């Protein structure tokens, strides 16, 4: 019977990827704390694990390569080698090489041997030494013979959990045990006897056709502590067994070799089977689930929340003597539903570390390329975010960090001349506040250059020659498409992906981005992101007989303007003056072709919303209150409607539309064009 373990290969690849990440992260930390033994041990363990497991699947290239990595790590650990920069580079590049090997094994393609060979050389410092795998013992039939074995176990036999009976049983598998003699010479007087110690010795006479090697294997675990003498017994070869072997019989009469290298016969490899069934990784602490299943669950829970709130509303207007009881039960239902909702949503949550962890390497490479000394500080990596958000913030963050490292931070000489430490710092941190996650990218570089930005904006006609802007408005200019002040395009940034893309990505997630900067002190980008994309906190508003939801995240304030505040500006339509800032008014009843209660801004309510750093005043009849709703995609079920981001089912069972704030901004611009 052959037990097939290839089904565990998928789990191996996954686990190995985690180990490689551990190694990479560990190495980067090690660069700063080269004496941290725990850290080296952790890296070592990861390499060791990959080595051991890859061997199980006969992925020899991986096993041998990690073996070299492990050797180097061991030399670092024992102080035989020191962690110089070339060594660190070799180690880091080898983790890349290891990734490549694992990927190659996964896809079944051949790996790039040239690349690996170079890395091997760098790991060993030239002296490649690959331990040969133990050679399989060749078993050949032997003539039956009689062997006498004298075995005197060490006194600690029992304390190691060994049982002499097991040895006898095993010997019986090797041949026929003719006699067993007990040796009692070492037995002490009863008073001195320690029942946990072994004082006995045995002599076996064995008829066997097996080699000395095989007999020795029986004693493999006790050899070290015991005295074993094996010799040919007088009565020799048993003629009944054919002697067709061409291998000369091993001379008998020698004692068991002191060290056996064979680990038994090596049956054919567990053939890697990439097309085989994929094992779902489960280690008791976690299980892997298809995200589609979770999304379905989230959707269902959304429905449940709606049903529950419909019931609650019904319960408020119910005529029944049991009304108090009903309401109590409904309140209970609401609590439980909320909790289920939160728990289910949390399934999709992942620590932001998933994104953050790739940046130490990014920054290290950037520093190496630009000749700068850069320190990256990570904070709040354990903060959790929705998986979709996590997957979408990688690129914007990479861009911001590259910008910080490449443009914002000065060269060490420049920094010293300015009285700053030569080492520049980029700080990446995440934290939760209310229903939002904040991620900040902070550098202590030169800060945004107001004059340069204004000059560039004037030159490209984004602002008029005489237009005066506040600092804040100037900073926002860098988010305009095609706006880059980088004097020269360097290798790492300035490749056309601008800050406008960053902002669009963040806003596409329902988030916002803000800038704080001070000349010579540095710049901070603050990203505000929703915890999840499936649920939106909204303000329910009424326009005529319709209910709409305005995402709370984009609302700045709500007000009823006085007559003097509303002005009509030629070419810009109607605007409202809010503390000196003129904001275009969008009448929702006009945008959605409805009959509204009020057509005069002074009688209606204006909700000031902000997106893309621009503000729009939405005119509605009434504010109904704050509400958490589950977003239903309109495009998937109907088609895209301008100004509408999605639909939801409200507590009373009717459908409410979620206002697309960016769409409203576009409408306000359209109004401007039309007027």
């Amino acid at each position: 019977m052959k037990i097939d373990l290839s089904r565990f290969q998928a789990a191996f690849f996954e686990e190995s990827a985690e180990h490689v990440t551990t190694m990479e992260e560990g190495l980067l930390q090690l660069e700063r704390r080269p004496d941290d033994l725990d850290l080296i041990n952790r890296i070592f363990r990861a390499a060791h694990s990959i080595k051991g497991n890859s061997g199980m699947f006969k992925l020899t290239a991986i096993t041998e390569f990690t073996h070299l990595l492990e050797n180097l790590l061991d030399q670092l650990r024992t102080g035989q080698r020191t962690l110089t920069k070339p060594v660190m580079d070799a180690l880091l590049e080898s983790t890349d090489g290891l990734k490549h090997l694992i990927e190659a094994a996964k896809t079944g393609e051949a790996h790039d041997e040239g690349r690996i060979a170079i890395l091997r050389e760098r790991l060993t410092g030239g002296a490649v030494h690959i331990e040969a795998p133990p050679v399989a013992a060749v078993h050949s039939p032997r003539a039956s013979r009689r062997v006498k074995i004298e075995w005197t176990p060490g006194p600690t036999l029992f304390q190691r959990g060994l049982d002499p009976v097991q040895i006898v049983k095993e010997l019986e598998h090797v041949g026929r045990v003719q006699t067993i003699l007990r040796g009692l010479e070492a037995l002490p007087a009863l008073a001195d006897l320690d029942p946990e110690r072994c004082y006995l010795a045995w002599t076996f006479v064995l008829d066997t056709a097996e080699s000395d090697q095989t007999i020795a294997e029986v004693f493999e675990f006790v050899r070290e502590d015991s005295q074993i003498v094996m010799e040919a017994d007088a009565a020799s070869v048993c003629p009944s067994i054919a002697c067709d072997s061409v291998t000369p019989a091993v001379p008998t009469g020698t004692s068991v070799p002191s060290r056996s290298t064979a680990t038994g016969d090596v049956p054919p490899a567990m053939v890697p089977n990439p097309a085989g069934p994929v094992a779902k990784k489960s280690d008791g602490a976690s299980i892997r689930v298809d995200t589609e299943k979770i999304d379905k669950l989230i959707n269902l829970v959304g429905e449940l929340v709606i049903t529950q709130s419909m019931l609650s509303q019904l319960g408020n207007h119910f005529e029944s003597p049991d009304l108090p009881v009903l309401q109590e039960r409904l309140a209970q239902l609401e609590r439980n539903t909320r909790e289920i909702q939160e728990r289910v949503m949390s399934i999709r949550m992942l620590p932001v570390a998933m994104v953050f962890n790739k940046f130490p390497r990014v920054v290290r490479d950037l520093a190496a390329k630009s000749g700068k000394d850069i320190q990256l500080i990570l904070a709040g990596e354990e903060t959790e975010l929705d998986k979709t958000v996590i997957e979408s913030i990688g690129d914007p963050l990479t861009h911001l960090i590259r910008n910080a490292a490449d443009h914002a931070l000065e060269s060490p000489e420049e920094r010293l001349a300015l009285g700053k430490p030569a080492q520049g710092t980029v700080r990446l941190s995440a934290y939760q506040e209310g229903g939002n996650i904040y991620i900040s990218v902070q550098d202590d570089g030169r800060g945004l250059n107001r004059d340069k930005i204004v000059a560039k904006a004037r030159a490209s006609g984004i602002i008029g020659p005489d237009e005066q802007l506040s600092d804040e408005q100037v900073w926002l200019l860098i988010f305009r498409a095609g706006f880059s002040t980088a004097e020269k395009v360097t290798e790492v940034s300035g490749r056309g992906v601008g800050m406008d893309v960053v902002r669009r990505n963040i806003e596409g997630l329902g988030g916002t981005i803000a800038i704080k900067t001070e000349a010579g002190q540095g710049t901070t980008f603050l990203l505000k992101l929703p915890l999840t994309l499936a649920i939106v906190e909204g303000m329910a508003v009424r326009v005529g007989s319709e209910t709409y939801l305005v995402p709370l995240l984009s609302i700045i304030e709500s007000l009823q303007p006085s007559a003097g505040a509303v002005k009509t500006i030629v070419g810009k339509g109607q605007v409202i003056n809010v503390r000196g800032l003129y904001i275009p008014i969008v009448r929702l009843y006009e945008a959605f072709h409805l009959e509204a209660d009020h057509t005069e801004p002074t009688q209606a309510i204006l909700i000031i919303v902000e997106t893309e750093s621009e503000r729009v005043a939405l005119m509605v009849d009434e504010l109904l209150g704050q509400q958490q709703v589950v977003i239903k995609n309109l495009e998937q079920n109907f088609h895209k409607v301008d100004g509408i981001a999605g639909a939801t089912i409200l507590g009373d069972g009717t459908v409410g539309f979620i206002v697309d704030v960016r769409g409203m901004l576009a409408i306000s611009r359209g109004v401007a064009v039309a007027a």
Partner: protein
Amino acid sequence: MSKTVLIVDDSATMRQMVNFTLTGAGFTVVEAGDGADAVKKLTAGTKPNLVITDLNMPNMDGISLIKEIRKMGTLKFTPILMLTTESTDDKKKEGQAAGATGWIVKPFNPEQMLKVIAKVLPS
């Protein structure tokens, strides 16, 4: 009654493979992620007939675990096999001194593992 084997390894893949092999051979398997986890499970009442432990593990390594187990009265004579990639004798010696019954050298195949288990575990 089926015999219980406690597997201690920080690699989930390894635990899965060993678990799969042993369950198929009729053993009841308990898993632990490292030495400390194993001690926790043993003090909580798990009574294995055999312990199989990796050596390189976080929190508590295999050698320390073996020493801990040998200190537990009820497990004084329980067979303990260690999983090792070391083909050198150093680790084996260290393991034996700590009280390990035997070892399985990685990489091994399931049949080899079952063979070694048969060697130390009375049927």
